[in-house]
């Protein structure tokens, strides 16, 4: 008996949308798009069971469904609440939701070190965006922040637990993507931490993806750490024939000139990867020759990364030849060959202290 699929009508912030039964409120909102999409720090559509923990996506259900129009008594996590036919949800139209979200952002930032100036995630950090959009301009917390020691999880991944917001994404990633989960949560309450027990290294073909799913700078790429700021880099889509059958081989190279600084999976506008990539692609293929470049990656306009203006850049034209009616400028005097101090054989960086004319004596 082939039943015709019935779509559920949902109203989010007075915008109607029809979605399939079983869709969550968050995903219904994403189908509408725009401002009314609740932020999500822990939900990750590619990871089963994720979500519900950070509470930033709280929304108000002002009407449960057509069948049962009662409103839900509390704010609900939109990433884990499925829609009902005729449901009415308010997100940014509800002051209560905005107030609660502001509270959640404050809680998330309570123990966060706010070391963005030295954090590799800065520029692509969800917590940065979230606090910019929903947070207060100062903190009311007057106590010492919680800190942890930095841990090397193998030679490729650095865990900086102090920055972690315990979204559990990396745990789900390791659980569902890799063959053997090697890390989880230790401790409880605000003393809980992501750990491998006795700092064992994470060693698995796909474990590098925990870096991509981490919404903050708690898990960073050791091969990229402190090498560059992301907004100075040019993201280009690239692919290669990866030997690993589970890897899609489609990545983003973050380049400066012809140098590949890092490789990540391709992320959509919600910061979720399109497909996971293997560790060989991520950590070992740092040569532009390994890749087939497809072109610049489109970055959301509001992202700081797009401030690099790398798309459609035009090289400045040398106007001199044109002005001289096509004649090449004549070199009158080559200052470099005449200069006494232009001595390529003397390496300035090896001179102790500032250079002195004595250093250039023949």
């Amino acid at each position, binding site marked *: 008996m082939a039943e015709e699929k019935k779509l559920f009508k949902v109203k989010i912030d007075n915008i109607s949308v029809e979605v399939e039964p079983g869709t969550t409120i968050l995903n219904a909102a994403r189908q509408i798009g725009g401002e009314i999409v609740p932020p999500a720090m822990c939900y990750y559509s590619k990871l089963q069971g994720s*979500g*519900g*923990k*950070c*509470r930033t996506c*709280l929304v108000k259900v002002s009407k449960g469904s057509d069948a049962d129009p009662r409103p839900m008594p*509390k*704010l609900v*996590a939109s990433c*884990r609440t499925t829609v009902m036919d005729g449901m009415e949800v308010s997100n940014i139209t509800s002051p209560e939701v905005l*107030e*609660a979200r502001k*509270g*959640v952002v*404050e*809680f*998330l930032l*309570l*123990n966060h070190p706010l070391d963005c100036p030295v954090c590799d995630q800065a520029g692509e950090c969800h917590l940065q965006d979230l606090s910019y959009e929903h947070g207060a301009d100062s903190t*009311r*917390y007057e*106590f010492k922040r919680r800190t942890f020691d930095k841990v090397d999880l193998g030679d490729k991944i650095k865990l900086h637990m102090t920055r972690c*917001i*315990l979204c*559990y994404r990396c745990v789900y990633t390791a659980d569902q993507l890799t063959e053997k989960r090697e890390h*989880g*949560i230790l*401790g*409880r*309450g*605000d*003393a*809980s931490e992501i750990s491998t027990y006795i700092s064992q290294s994470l060693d698995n073909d796909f474990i590098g993806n925990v870096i991509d799913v981490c919404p903050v700078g708690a898990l960073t790429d050791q091969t990229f750490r402190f090498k560059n700021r992301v907004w100075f880099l040019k993201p280009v889509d690239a692919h290669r024939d990866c030997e690993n059958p589970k890897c899609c081989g489609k990545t983003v190279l973050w380049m400066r000139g012809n140098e590949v600084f890092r490789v990540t999976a391709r992320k959509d506008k919600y910061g979720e990867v399109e497909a996971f990539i293997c560790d060989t692609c991520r950590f070992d293929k740092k040569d532009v020759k390994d890749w087939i470049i497809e072109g610049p990656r489109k970055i959301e306009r509001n992202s700081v990364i797009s401030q690099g203006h790398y798309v459609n850049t035009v090289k400045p034209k040398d106007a001199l030849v044109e002005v001289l009616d096509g004649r090449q400028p004549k070199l009158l005097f080559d200052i470099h060959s005449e200069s006494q101090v232009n001595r390529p054989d003397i390496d300035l960086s090896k001179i102790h202290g500032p250079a002195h004319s004595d250093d250039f004596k023949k």
Partner: protein
Amino acid sequence: MGRKLLLDKAHIEGIRYYDTYRSNGGYAAAEKALKTMGPDAVLEEVKKSGLRGRGGAGFPTGLKWSFIAKPEGVPRYLVCNADESEPGTFKDRYLMEFIPHLLIEGLIISSFTLGANSAYIYIRGEYAWIPDILEQAIAEAKNKGWLGKNILGTGFDLEIYVQRGAGAYICGEETALIESLEGKRGNPRIKPPFPAVKGLWQCPTVVNNVETLAAVVPIINIGGDEYIKYGTGKSTGTKLISACGNINKPGVYEIEMNISVEEFIYSDEYCGGIKNNKRLKACIPGGSSVPVLPANLLLKTAKGETRMMTYESLADGGFATGSMLGSGGFIVMDEDQCIVRNTLTFARFYHHESCGQCSPCREGTGWMEKVLKNIEYGKGKMSDIDLLWDIQRKIEGNTICPLGDAAAWPVAAAIRHFRDEFEWHVAHPQEALTRNFGLAHYADPLPAPVAAV
């Protein structure tokens, strides 16, 4: 003397053992339920009795049982929540220690009603000696044919397992308990799905408190119609109250839910009055998570009525002027107790017990504790009181499980009713270190209620 249903035979020597329990009318209810009644009749009887969950929330048990999904070929489970960890609550411990067979009998009847062939007793790890008592009782019952295969020739099979927790308050939350029972980290699950649909090992599960399950036995014995004659209104039957604090006779009392709070505290049958003839300052009537009430609001509701020991009366006035019966952890505080310190103790507890899964509770509980510590130790500011209020408001209702609410409510109630004491602590930091605020006006008669216009 109030009538008793659960502890009426608790004083009999050797009631812990099967023979004594059986010869005093034990297992008659199980026999009646299994042989003559059948599951539907038992469910009907429990519904009729109006029995409400004794674990704290007070949800009607019959209704809860009727929610259980019954898909074909999927086992159903009954889980007994014996993870009694709420500060101030110790009633289940008494039941399990002294009359374990009452619980076993309740489990048999309830499992039979729900069609569950396995029942689990999840007991808190700190009750280290009780699993032995329970397991002995289970072995006795099994020997006598009350457990195992084909019980009483009815074709109903049941096994009861005792599982110890590892010392986490959060595992008293039903979904965290299920996770823990499955051998995982005790993190509460996100609901829905509710345990009645997907609980233990993704199968339909009912989680009930020890006392609730035990109360099923007298209901079957005397019938639902008789049971509602105990108590008042929707608070039917009897309730175990574990009384503690500054009273003359702390302990576990079974009360019929038709006595007043004042009678409970001052009568010789129950608490026997405040210790050393001091005056009553405040009371937490239902375990640490429910709002604290000052003496005047405790004995009389805001409407001027006498407050009774019932679900409804204690909740009268909502959280503005009322509290909750909760799990029955009755904590009495005399005039020399410091509310700020008491609130700090609870805040520390909830900070320690937060599972850390969702952000408001993980971060907020610790923050409240630190702010309260400052106020208690003379480093507070006036703005801290408003800050505390704001923090608790942002935790409450925004978390996955009720632990966030449970952490927020005591702080909210303390500030709501005892704000002067907080302000005194801030204004007199040195004095606050050496003496307490005292009774102040907290026992003064309430202003006469304004007639509704």
